[in-house]
């Protein structure tokens, strides 16, 4: 884009938006240069902060007419660089759209704007005995629009599902600036399931400007058990046994030795620091159900060889046990100048071999790895400790991270369970998917955004990029779709 084009874009934006909603000075746009993944930084050409759906539509119409790319941004807490700006693009912040439009206790739903914080929805619903179930660890800060764009999870997804299972309807502004409704206030809607398609689409298909979420009754009681093991494999077996007994815990988390020690040193949760692994198992539901299942889970943990099984005596102890888990990332972060958080998912039964391989590679690369695991649903967060100031260490960390993700794919899992692809895992997408599948993704993208203006370069790699990365599945020296451009 030439300086002249840029000047006319800014001029046009200032006709649509108030002066303070268009930021282009270096010091104003600097805070938007990255999201929660700060290893990638780029300032945008301009940041806009619309405060109404009509303003979002006007911005999209303008950008569509001028063919200027747009990156939507929520609270900027994402961990995969999904909201990384483009040097020649508009960064569209939804932060000013932050009203809770209505809470409907009868239908058990809430209609909110995208900038509303995840936790604020549950707070607004609490007077009615209701809450919004998905609870990503960033729930104090992250916004619901971003949650939808990333299909955010949390520690309770084994029982309550991901964002896609907990929303009813979206208001979306298309790349052309049209407003469309996806989903409905009933439990389903006519036509294709666009609600599922938009969820987790990382800002590539449209701009989410309104979300109707499903609310659930607050469980009568929640209780947590801590079980310590002298062997990771015994802990993994116990997870399978709990599920085999017909119990679906609200949360089932595992931490390995390094993670336990880091968390204990940081928040003094009362974890047994000599254990090889601990499981935190939360049971919720009606009072009677919780009592019945807690007894059963205790029995299973003991039968699987737990060296210690502890049930939280009261809410304070329960909160303390969870505090260690929730603080695990920053706790591990204290052990080294930098850490890199992975997000693979694996079939749970493959956990022992995956952990063994990670330990071997950790030795080989000389980089410590702590493991925090949503054990119930197989979502593994290995945290690689490194020092970015040591020459070459970041590159080796990324290489180790890439190997771990490729291992997740090889054992039948996925490169990302809940953080999204963004820019971070774009190369591993070439491992997860074959060129024909990526081509289908591009065709889907094209159906919504023919000119590729919405968050281009994220989530779905071009075939050209995969070829460069070297992971393209080339059959007999021929690339599929020879007629396609490789840009």
């Amino acid at each position, binding site marked *: 884009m030439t300086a002249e084009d840029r000047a006319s874009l800014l001029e046009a934006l200032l006709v649509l938006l108030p002066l303070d909603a268009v930021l282009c000075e270096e010091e104003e746009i600097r805070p938007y240069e990255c999201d929660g993944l700060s290893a990638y930084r780029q300032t945008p050409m301009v940041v806009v902060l619309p405060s109404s759906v009509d303003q979002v539509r006007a911005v999209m119409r303008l950008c569509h007419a001028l063919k200027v790319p747009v990156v939507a941004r929520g609270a900027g807490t994402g961990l995969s660089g999904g909201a990384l700006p483009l040097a020649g693009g508009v960064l569209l912040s939804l932060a000013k759209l932050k009203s809770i439009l209505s809470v409907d206790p*009868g*239908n*058990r739903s809430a209609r909110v704007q995208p900038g509303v914080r995840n936790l604020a929805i549950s707070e607004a619903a609490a007077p009615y005995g209701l809450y919004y179930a998905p609870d990503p660890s960033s729930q104090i800060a992250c916004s619901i629009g971003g949650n939808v764009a*990333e*299909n955010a999870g949390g520690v309770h997804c084994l029982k309550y*599902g991901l964002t896609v299972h907990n929303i009813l309807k979206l208001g979306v502004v298309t790349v052309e600036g049209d407003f*469309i*409704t*996806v989903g*409905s206030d*009933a*439990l*389903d*809607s*006519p*036509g*294709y*399931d*666009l609600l*599922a*398609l938009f*969820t987790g*689409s990382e800002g*590539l*298909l449209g701009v989410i400007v309104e979300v109707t979420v499903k609310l659930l*009754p607050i469980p*009568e009681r929640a209780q947590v058990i801590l079980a310590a093991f002298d062997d990771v494999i015994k802990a993994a077996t116990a997870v399978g046994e709990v*599920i085999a007994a*017909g*119990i*679906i815990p609200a949360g089932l988390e595992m931490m390995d030795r390094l993670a336990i020690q880091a968390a204990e040193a940081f928040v003094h949760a009362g974890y047994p620091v000599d254990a090889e692994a601990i499981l935190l198992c939360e049971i919720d*539901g*009606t009072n*009677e*159900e919780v009592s019945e299942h807690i007894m059963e889970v205790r029995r299973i943990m003991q039968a699987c060889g737990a060296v210690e099984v502890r049930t939280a005596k009261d809410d304070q102890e329960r909160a303390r046990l969870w505090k260690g888990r929730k603080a695990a990332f920053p706790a591990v972060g204290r052990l080294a100048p930098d850490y890199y958080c992975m997000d693979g*998912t694996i*079939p749970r039964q493959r956990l022992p071999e995956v952990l063994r391989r990670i330990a071997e590679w950790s030795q080989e690369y000389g980089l410590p790895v702590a493991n925090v695991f*949503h054990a119930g649903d*197989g*979502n593994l967060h290995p945290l690689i400790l490194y020092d970015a100031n040591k020459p070459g260490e970041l590159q080796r960390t990324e290489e180790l991270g890439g190997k771990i993700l490729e291992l997740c794919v090889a054992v*039948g*899992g*996925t490169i*990302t*369970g*809940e953080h*999204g*692809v963004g820019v971070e*895992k774009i190369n591993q997408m070439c491992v997860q*998917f*074959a060129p*024909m*599948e990526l081509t*289908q*993704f591009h*065709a*889907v993208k*094209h*159906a919504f955004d023919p000119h590729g203006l919405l968050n281009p370069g994220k989530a*779905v790699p071009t075939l050209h990029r995969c070829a460069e990365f070297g992971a393209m599945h080339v059959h007999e020296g021929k690339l599929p779709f020879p007629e396609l451009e490789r840009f």
Partner: protein
Amino acid sequence: MDKDIAKELQERVTAACHAKTPLAIVGGGSKAFLGREPRGEPLQIGEHRGIVSYQPTELVITARAGTSLHDIEAVLADQRQMLPFEPPHFGASATLGGTIACGLSGPRRPYTGAARDYVLGMTIINGSGDILRFGGQVMKNVAGFDVSRLMVGAMGTLGVQLEISLKVLPRPAQEVTLIQERTAAEALVVMNHWAGQALPLSATCYDGDHLYVRLSGAQSAVESARRRVGGDVLNSPGEFWESVREHHHGFFAGEAPLWRLALPPVTPPLLIPGKQLIEWGGAQRWLSGEVDGAMLRRHIAEAGGHTRLFRGGERGKVGHHPLTPSVLEIHRRLKRAFDPEGILNHGRMYAWG
């Protein structure tokens, strides 16, 4: 007999794509009455069957699309597990692929989720004859667009399903169904009141005179909820819920057109001609009778819902609820993205595709 005929199916689709010959995908034929008239050469997927993998402790089952729904449910039941969306079969020949393509869910739907909620991954043949795999066999997976869930309810218009991976759940240890005499207005109020409480609801139905409430969960939880909800215990609850799910219940007898009305659950009783049966806490209502389709649509849309002519009536003219122009355009483009020649179940869902 387990059999993998993916290659043959792929060849058929590729040939049809080149010749631009429409294909009508057929599983067990149990839901042939749904949607608009099937057109084109039949593409039989019933032979492509067999459970590919099932690990009860992983809570995941993967099966070929032609696998009998009955067989899958039997295998799960042996391990005290189930398909959580309690799908209707509408006939002994129902296949997994047909069930997912139609995206139908049964009585448990409002409390545990819909068919699409339990789909983890899928292998399909698109309209160009490419075999593509999306999602996987793990619970959490946000890599790439959620194409597997897009296939649910698309009635085969976007792809031929080959293999489907589903999340399954343990069967509840205990179930009881309670019956209460209620007016429709009362029934709608209490169903939604209970749904906002920590109660182990798993199905609700109002047949015009009586409200049926199913409770599922740990034994002690069901026992205590039974006391809170009140009412008489229904004998043979299994038969009752099956009759509602499979449309064998007396309400569904006769030849009158059957409409499905999807509504926000607390919508008060609808004052429209014809008889009604209420399910899903008020979110799914069945209307049987000769009604003015256009008027019904308007009425239901004003209440925030949508309609579908489910059985009988003028099948070619009214099917799915109409889409707004922008959403319709997205549908057309998506159809082209998966099936550029328009050969897969053309016209089954909408006249245009």
